[in-house]
């Protein structure tokens, strides 16, 4: 960027930079988009010292509340505060509508897909999705074949990652259909921002998010097994892997907000296919489990035998229809990164509609010509392991060394089904308050979708930020942070 452009800016934007990416705040250097005008004006008027103080107060409040996550691959108990950025990301109402419609369409189609592949498998028979792709997926659970889940809902809590491309359109980067996390940060960010920018917040007319916990509880209750209704108010619990899990804070937070019991595997037991929890007053029957434990660990009798986090016999109780799990077992097949490439076709197949939100172009490495192309262009592409999440098991071509590329080349040759490749996306950038000034950083957006009696999206979601300069990885485990997301009411 030429030096002359910078002088258009006054602090805190003096060093604000642009590249090819879409900028959330500015339509041209120095010219904010209409919905960012008021924030831009406020920032120009606010002494940087004020903002710095607010940032410190916010950090301290996160630390005291213990809003932390655990980093794996370190000594146990390395709790870190999840960095929060003070400058809100603002989304106009019309853009949000489109996102909402697109995600509603997507969750409906993915649930139909799951029901189909665990029953007749019409989509496989019709050759829309290759059979071997489904059956070779590590997250396909043959145990779920023929099992009917209440309302046909497999995925009732979903967090979908969206990115904004240079042309300004949103695209789906990946679906998280197993145990998506991060919603507690969305709520915590909002609480802090209301304190920091009360007037601005009110004047903007921001859609509220505080009802998330209520909506989640209503969703979970809607799933309660048919023979529970009439017996008593359905008993809903949240199953956590325990205090050493990276998202333990979120588990305690959500349980508290919903007013439900936070249980560990050892608190539950199964007797004659009924799930009970051990309370001081004796055993209490459990109807719905919002489980934050992965499929693999949920029942040692059925899945991993060495799991101490699960409940022996839980799967049989589930099969018997005596308890509901949210999300269902085996939903990971639909967020496999290779199956992802077929989601637009899945939407067309079940709903007869065109996808509202686009996918990101994806190369399937089981296909010889696509694989050859990818192997020749490893330095330009992003390679991802199909079953991983959280930013683990990734190669970012432009930022990689020859050695890393060689390693991935070998891995792809060994197990082509296990990887996909995508173009290196230029995620949109938004201003963040770092080192006392506004700097542009790449962001994505993870809205949370609830599917019970109907589909509910709390407006906004978690905007994740790659806080390291130039970084494209927004995951908390890889140096990411987050910021509040303001969806405007009008």
């Amino acid at each position, binding site marked *: 960027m030429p030096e002359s452009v910078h002088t258009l800016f006054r602090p805190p934007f003096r060093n604000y930079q642009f590249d090819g990416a879409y900028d959330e705040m500015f339509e041209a250097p120095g010219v904010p988009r209409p919905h960012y005008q008021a924030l831009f004006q406020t920032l120009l008027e606010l002494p940087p010292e004020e903002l710095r103080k607010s940032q410190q107060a916010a950090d301290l409040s996160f630390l005291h509340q213990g809003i932390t996550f655990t980093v794996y691959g370190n000594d146990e108990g390395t709790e870190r505060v999840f960095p929060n950025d003070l400058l809100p990301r603002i989304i106009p109402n019309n853009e949000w509508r489109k996102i909402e419609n697109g995600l509603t369409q997507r969750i409906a189609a993915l649930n139909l897909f799951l029901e189909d592949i665990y029953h007749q498998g019409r989509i496989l028979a019709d050759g829309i999705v290759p059979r071997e792709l489904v059956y070779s997926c590590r997250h396909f659970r043959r145990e779920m074949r023929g099992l009917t889940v209440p309302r046909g809902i497999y995925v009732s809590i979903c967090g979908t990652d969206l990115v904004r491309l240079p042309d300004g359109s949103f695209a789906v980067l990946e679906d998280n259909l197993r145990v998506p996390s991060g919603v507690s940060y969305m709520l915590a960010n909002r609480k802090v921002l209301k304190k920091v920018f009360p007037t601005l917040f009110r004047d903007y007319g921001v859609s509220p998010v505080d009802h998330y916990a209520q909506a989640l509880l209503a969703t979970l209750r809607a799933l309660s097994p048919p023979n529970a209704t009439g017996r008593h108010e359905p008993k809903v619990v949240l199953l956590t892997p325990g205090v050493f899990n990276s998202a333990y804070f979120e588990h305690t937070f959500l349980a508290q907000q919903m007013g439900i019991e936070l249980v*560990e595997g050892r608190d539950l037991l199964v007797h004659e296919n009924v799930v009970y929890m*051990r309370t*001081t*007053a004796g055993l209490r029957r459990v109807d719905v489990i919002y489980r934050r434990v992965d499929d693999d660990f949920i029942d040692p009798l059925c899945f991993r035998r060495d799991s101490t986090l699960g409940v022996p016999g839980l799967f049989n109780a589930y099969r018997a229809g005596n308890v509901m799990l949210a999300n269902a077992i085996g939903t990971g097949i639909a967020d496999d990164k290779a199956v992802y490439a077929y989601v637009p076709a899945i939407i067309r197949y079940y709903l007869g509609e065109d996808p509202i939100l686009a996918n990101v172009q994806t190369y399937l490495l089981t296909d010889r010509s696509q694989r050859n192309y990818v192997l020749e262009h490893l330095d330009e592409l992003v390679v991802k392991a199909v079953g991983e999440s959280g930013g683990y098991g990734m190669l970012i071509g432009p930022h990689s060394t020859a050695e890393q590329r060689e390693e991935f080349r070998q891995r792809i040759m060994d197990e082509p089904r296990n990887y996909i490749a995508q173009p290196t996306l230029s995620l949109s950038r938004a201003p963040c308050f770092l080192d006392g000034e506004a700097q542009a950083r790449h962001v994505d957006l993870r809205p949370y979708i609830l599917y019970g009696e109907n589909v509910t999206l709390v407006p906004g979601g978690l905007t994740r930020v790659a806080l390291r300069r130039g970084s494209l990885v927004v995951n908390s485990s890889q140096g990411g942070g987050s910021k509040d997301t303001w969806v405007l009411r009008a």
Partner: protein
Amino acid sequence: MSGQRETTMLSRVADSLYWMSRYLERAEHTARLIDVDFQLRLDQSPEAGAGRWLRLLEASQVAPPLDGKIDAATLTHILTLDRGNPSSIISCVVAARENLRQVREQCSSEMWEQLNRLYLQVNSTTSSEAWLLHSYIFFRAVQEGAHLFHGVTDSTMSHGEGWHYIQLGRFVERTDALARLIGAHFKRLPQSPDQSVENEEYLEWVGLLKSCAAFEAYCKTYTAELRPLRVAEFLLLNPGFPHSVRFSVDMVHAALRAIGELTERKAEQPLRLAGRLRATLSFSQIDEIMASGPNAYVDSIRWQCAQAHTAIHQVYFDYSVESALVA
């Protein structure tokens, strides 16, 4: 159904609260024992101290060294900062915090912050000569930290079932610790227990009272004239003093009655055992206790207390599925 929402408490949560409280009480008790020892040491010959240190180890359930020799620095280290000793102060504070951390959503944030503060302070302490010289500051801090925690708990946590488990853990631990300490002191029965004691002996009995935070309260009741019989009566049978065995057992009983009502399991074993222990203490005469041997008496108290503890575990925390399904 009535308008009141049925509240449930997970057995694991109750278990954690109970143990958190026991560990914290244990840390406080040990801190007081060493604190008192420090003060006494200044007034005594080294030989007199050595006997007391062995008693201290016994009261803390730590095996004495094989040759029977021990010095002040080693003793202090074992009981304070030795992470290998599960009943050292540091081990107890770590265990208390770990128990509370696992049920954080059940306690008030003030409670968590208070215990976390105590933990951070204890955890950052390292043994050194300079530290030893001023370690009384540390022992005071641990006692105050525990007192503050209970104060914060009483005024910020609702006095429901969870609160009663905290009470229960605290007073079960106190009953046992007091009985153990009194037992260690009465091992060597004084010639004439109803006579006032003097000199070195006097200091030992002051030490016992102070180890139970009871010296001032004793003086108010019996004046500063120390007679072993009266000390025993005060520490065992006084109904109003919070560090007497009888008071502690009364609190255990009250907590169990409240829990029994909240869980609708009134007829259960723990309350019956606590009730029997309470009756024993209410109707005992100190003359009879001394005549039949105070050691046997405190042993029986400890035995009954251990039975109550086991019953609490079996009924509330770790019951068998079969028994629960029948009920």
